[in-house]
């Protein structure tokens, strides 16, 4: 089983709340989380919907293994149409909220329509109520969480909410839970803000039932052992968190610097994961629910400010990409993003875009209204403009729309390092060919976690591939995309895949659900989810022309370092990728493929 079999549908306009049954057949075909949420969403919502209109819906979906003892089994997914990329949006988060959400006895929440006044949802295993949130509107994510926790008075309750940036419909705003965990990407915070839904607080004690409890326990014990004994999940990630990557990616010459104008940063030692420890900022590791890895970082800065992170990507975005070498300021910018409810990757990349626009004279000094100059390397600027962005003040109005729309507004979209208008994270595709193909074909735009080819191409897991080789890469990309769809739908963390493979996920899912997936069936389920997302995007109006990378990455060779001279070879990779996907040369799934997948 491992599902409660219940969906809660909340109409924010009429305040009607009703419980519906979750079909087990649907659960088996789409697992849960990302897959199941996308299926429900695409059945109910016109792909051409205006993402910030009342007709868009907002789904919170737990996975089949969420709130079980499976390692990292505490994740949930937010599914909606993205106002940033106009694609399907599904944004994943850890912490403890997903676990407590499932404890309410519901697998999925569907928010419809738009509230007249700011509200929040209180949900436990006995009641569901929409309550007034006018006293919370304008508060940041930490204040909102503290106020709600005090009001509710239940110590084990958990909160997901938006900050001021989501309220103000910033297209790069996320949904924060447990204060510092984020369903960060795709602008899902703006959709929540457009519905005047400030927060969800969940409480409850309903346990997730397991099909074969004893066998599941044995399997879990074995998977925890695999994770503990693996060098990456047992040692590297616990010791340095995700920021172990700063030096790795910089050393191979794929560490985007100065808005992707360079691929190595001379000050990396000042801003790396090692520096976070050596400078004494790291207090301790932080783990999400049921996680044996504990990659999270609790950090206290010399001036006394405490928070979580930065993770590798936000640290890089505010650091190397803006050529800022002050780790204290970078950490503060990350804290601010968490409080304002901004996607910290997109926020950093957008500021780097603004810096290049300023550097080239497209943004004029007068427009900064006496604010700090948007010069590369100006640490003061990143804090100042993150705040402006979060509150949509002054030039922050434009920054809050993300990198692409910012650059486009000055007539220079080529300065924006985005795919499908979403900001590209911390790996230069010119130095890592398969990963670049993953960016170009990603169903939600510039995203690294739907196809983390860094594993084989850089880290060497499960085996080492040459990052500049293109032969065989489309096949790897397809496998990684399909497997990630399975992991996201299961409610587990992607980081388990450094040590675990498809048979491990199949075993955990089978013991928990009783569905008895073969490994092939499970991978085909991942492929079904990928194709469902693709269909949604095509019906929303996207085409093969959107499966691309910024011109700079396709035409301008990396100027220096180990990847010197390379561009991304997308045109050589994409046709074969379409072919092995069973899509036409225009990137459209064939009828045969759709029928094979039961779509």
């Amino acid at each position, binding site marked *: 089983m491992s599902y409660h079999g219940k969906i809660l549908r909340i109409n924010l306009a009429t305040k009607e709340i009703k419980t519906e049954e979750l079909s087990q057949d649907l659960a088996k075909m789409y697992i849960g989380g990302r897959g199941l949420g996308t299926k429900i969403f695409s059945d109910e919502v016109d792909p051409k919907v205006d993402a910030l209109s009342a007709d868009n819906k907002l789904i919170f979906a737990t996975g089949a293994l969420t709130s079980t003892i499976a390692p990292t089994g505490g994740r949930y997914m937010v599914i909606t149409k993205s106002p940033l990329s106009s694609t399907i949006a599904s944004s994943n988060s850890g912490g403890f909220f997903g676990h407590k959400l499932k404890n309410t006895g519901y697998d999925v929440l569907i928010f419809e329509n738009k509230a007249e006044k700011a509200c929040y949802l209180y949900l436990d295993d006995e009641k569901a109520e929409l309550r007034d949130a006018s006293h919370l509107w304008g508060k940041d994510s930490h204040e909102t969480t503290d106020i709600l926790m005090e009001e509710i008075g239940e110590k084990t309750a958990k909160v997901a909410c938006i900050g001021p940036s989501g309220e103000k419909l910033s297209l790069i705003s996320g949904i924060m839970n447990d204060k510092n965990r984020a369903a960060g990407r795709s602008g899902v915070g703006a959709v929540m803000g457009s519905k005047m839904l400030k927060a969800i607080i969940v409480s409850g004690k309903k346990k997730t039932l397991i099909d074969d409890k004893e066998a599941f326990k044995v399997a879990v014990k074995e998977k925890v052992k695999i994770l503990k004994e693996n060098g990456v999940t047992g040692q*590297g990630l616990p010791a340095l968190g995700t920021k172990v990557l700063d030096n790795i990616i910089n*050393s*191979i010459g794929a560490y985007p610097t100065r808005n992707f104008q360079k691929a190595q940063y001379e000050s990396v030692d000042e801003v790396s994961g090692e520096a976070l420890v050596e400078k004494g900022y790291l207090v301790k590791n932080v783990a999400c629910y049921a996680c044996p890895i504990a990659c999270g970082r609790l950090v206290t800065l010399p001036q006394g400010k405490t928070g979580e992170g930065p993770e590798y990507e936000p640290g890089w975005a505010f650091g190397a990409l803006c050529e800022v070498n002050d780790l204290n300021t970078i950490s503060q910018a990350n804290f601010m993003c968490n409080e304002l409810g901004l996607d910290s990757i997109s926020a950093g990349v957008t500021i780097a875009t603004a810096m290049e626009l300023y550097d080239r004279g497209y943004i004029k000094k007068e427009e900064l209204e006496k604010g700090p100059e948007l010069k590369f390397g100006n640490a003061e600027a990143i804090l100042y403009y993150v705040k402006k962005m979060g509150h949509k003040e002054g030039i922050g109005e434009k920054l809050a729309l993300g990198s692409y729309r910012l650059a486009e507004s000055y007539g220079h979209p080529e300065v924006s390092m985005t795919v499908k208008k979403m900001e590209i994270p911390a790996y230069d595709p010119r130095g890592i060919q398969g990963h670049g193909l993953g960016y170009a074909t990603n169903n939600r735009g510039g995203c690294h976690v739907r196809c983390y080819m860094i594993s084989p191409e850089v880290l060497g897991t499960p085996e080492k591939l040459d990052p500049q080789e293109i032969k065989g890469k489309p096949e790897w990309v397809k496998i990684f995309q399909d497997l990630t769809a399975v992991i996201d739908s299961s409610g587990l963390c992607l980081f388990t895949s*450094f040590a675990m493979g498809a048979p491990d996920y199949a075993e955990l899912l089978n013991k928990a659900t009783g569905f008895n997936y073969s490994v092939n069936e499970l991978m085909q389920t991942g492929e079904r989810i990928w194709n469902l997302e693709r269909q949604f995007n095509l019906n929303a109006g996207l085409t093969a022309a959107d499966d691309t990378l910024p011109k700079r990455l396709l035409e301008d060779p990396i100027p220096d370092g180990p990847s010197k001279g390379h561009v991304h070879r997308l045109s050589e990779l994409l046709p074969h990728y379409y072919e092995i996907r069973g899509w036409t040369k225009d990137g459209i799934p064939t009828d045969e493929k759709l029928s094979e997948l039961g779509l």
Partner: protein
Amino acid sequence: MKIQVKLYSTLRLNLGVAGLEIEIDKPVTILKLLKLASQQLNSDIIPELIEDGKIMVGTILLINGKNILHAEKLETMINEECEVSVFPPSGGG
């Protein structure tokens, strides 16, 4: 010739050393270089990187940014001044 060896991740944190310079008078394999580094550091770093004679999954050894797994692995020769980056098994973002 002088070889710059840079240590990262848990090696750097545990040893409290970011790197060292090794002087060699003739070409050596990277395995030999790691042994020389261990002697100079007074600490055997090999078990952190290599198991049963093989590079551990997740270990990254780079010569001027190029992974030795795409050259001659532990037998890759170092025959000119270069920078060697040493990462024990590491994670992702």
